[in-house]
C-alpha cells in the first residue's frame, strides 16, 4: 500500500504530537518524503540525506526545545533545527 497519491511511504510518525518522523529507507537531500501518521499523510522536503532508521524533523525545532517521539520527550535540540533536517546526535542532547 502507499499514500493516496500513489507514492510510497518514506517515513513514519508514531504519535500526532511528534515533531520527528523515522525514515523507513534512505532519503536523499532535496527529495520530498511522504510521511505516514496513522491514516494521515504529509509531505516534507528533506534538507539533508537521512539514512534508514534515522529521524527527520517534520517542523522547525528551536534550540532548547523538546524533540518529541512516541508522544514523549526523547531529548532536546542543541541547535536550531530546520523543517526537513536530519535529527540525531549532532543536534540533540539528552
Amino acid at each position: 500500500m502507499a499514500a493516496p497519491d500513489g507514492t510510497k511511504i518514506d517515513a513514519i510518525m508514531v504519535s500526532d504530537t511528534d515533531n520527528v518522523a523515522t525514515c523507513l529507507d534512505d532519503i536523499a537531500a532535496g527529495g520530498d518524503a511522504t510521511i505516514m501518521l496513522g491514516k494521515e499523510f504529509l509531505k516534507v522536503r528533506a534538507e539533508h540525506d537521512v539514512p534508514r532508521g534515522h529521524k527527520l524533523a517534520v517542523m522547525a525545532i528551536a534550540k532548547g526545545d523538546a524533540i518529541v517521539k512516541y508522544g514523549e520527550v526523547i531529548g532536546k535540540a542543541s541547535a536550531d533545527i530546520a523543517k526537513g533536517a536530519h535529527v540525531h546526535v549532532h543536534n540533540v542532547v539528552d
Partner: protein
Amino acid sequence: MFNGFPRPNGSAGVRNLVAVISLMDNCNGLARKIVENVRGTVLVTDLFGRKMQGTNHEMRLKAFEGMATNPNVGGVVLVTLHATSAETFAAPIAVAGKDVETVAYQDFGSTLKSVEQGILHAAKMAKKCSGVQREEQPLSKLVLGLECGGSDFTSGISGNPALGVAADMLLDAGGSVILSETAEIMGAEHLLAARAVNDAVAKKIVQAVADMEEMARIAGVPDIRRSNPAADNIKGGLTTLAEKALGAVKKAGSRPLQGVVDYCEPVVPDPPGFYFMSTPAPACESMTGLAAGGAQIIAFNTGSGQPSSHPVAPTIKFTGNPLTASRGVDDLDLEVSDILTGAVSIAEAGKRIYDEVIAVANGRYTYTELYDTAQSTISVQGASF
C-alpha cells in the same frame, strides 16, 4: 478461555513437557543424550553449577526451581553428579505436585548406565503426560512473557507497539504479562513508575534500575546510562537513551503496573495484570527469567533477526521489519511489517499477535519448538546487565 493441562496447584500448562534438567555443566552431555532418545522431553542445561556459592547459587536454585515448576512441565528428570546435590532442587518440585526423578552419575560411574536410567525415567513420565487431556481454563491462568531481541529501528515503531496491543488485549481478557530487561527500560522507568498501582510498586521499579546501574558500576562499567545507546544503535538511528527505552517499553501496552519481582522470582498473578521482572537484557537470560517466573508463552519481537527461544516456554517469534520477515519465513511464526506500508493498523497487527498467543496456548507449535533450537541461560551475577 484456553485449553490447558491442569496442575495440582491450580495453574494450567499450555504444554505437558518432561523437562530433563542438568544441574551442572559436567552432566550436560548426559542430559542431552536422554532427551535425544525420548519424545516429549525438553533439555534444560546451563554452564557452571559445581560448587557455586552465594548469590549465584541462590539464583540457580530459584531459576531451576522456577523452570521445573513452570505450569508447562508435567515431569522432571534431574541429572547431576551426586544425589545429594539434587535433593535441594527436587524437594520444591515434588511439593508442586510434579513427578521428579534424579539420575546421579556417581551412583553408576558409567555414562551408558546413567543415560539408560534417565531414558527410562523420562519415557515413563512422557507416556503418563501423553495421556493427560487438556481442559478448559480461564485466561486468568495465562501469563505471557514479553521479549525483544536483535532490536532495530522498526522495533519501537511496528513490532513492539503491536505486541503492546496484544498485551493489553490479554490483560483486558483477565490474563497477565511480564516485561523484563532492566537495562532496556533505563531512561523510561519514570513512565512505568507513573503506571504503578501504588507508591511501593513505583519505588520498586525505579529501584530495580538503580540496582542494575550499581551492579554495572561494581563490575567495572562506571556509567551504563552514558554508554547507551551503543555505537551500533546510534549508527542505526537511535539518538538518546530515552528514545531507546521508550521503544522497548512499547511492548508493555498501557495498563497499570501491578508488581515488580527479582530475577527468576515466581510471578504470582494475584491479581492478574502487568508485572515487571528485573533481568539482564540478553534474550536467553531474560527468557529464562520469564519461564522461571511462570510465563507459559513468550512473544518475542526481533527487528533484525534472532534465532533463540526457551525450552520450557513456547516462544512466538515475529518481526515488524519487512526484510527480516522475508528472510525468516522458516522461523518466524508471524510478521507485522505491513504496519510500515500502512496496509494494517497497529491495532489490527496486535490482534494478529494475540490470536497466535491463544492458538499456541491451545496447542499450535511454534517454529522454534519444531526445530528444537531452544536455549536456557541462567544469569551469572556481574557478567550481564
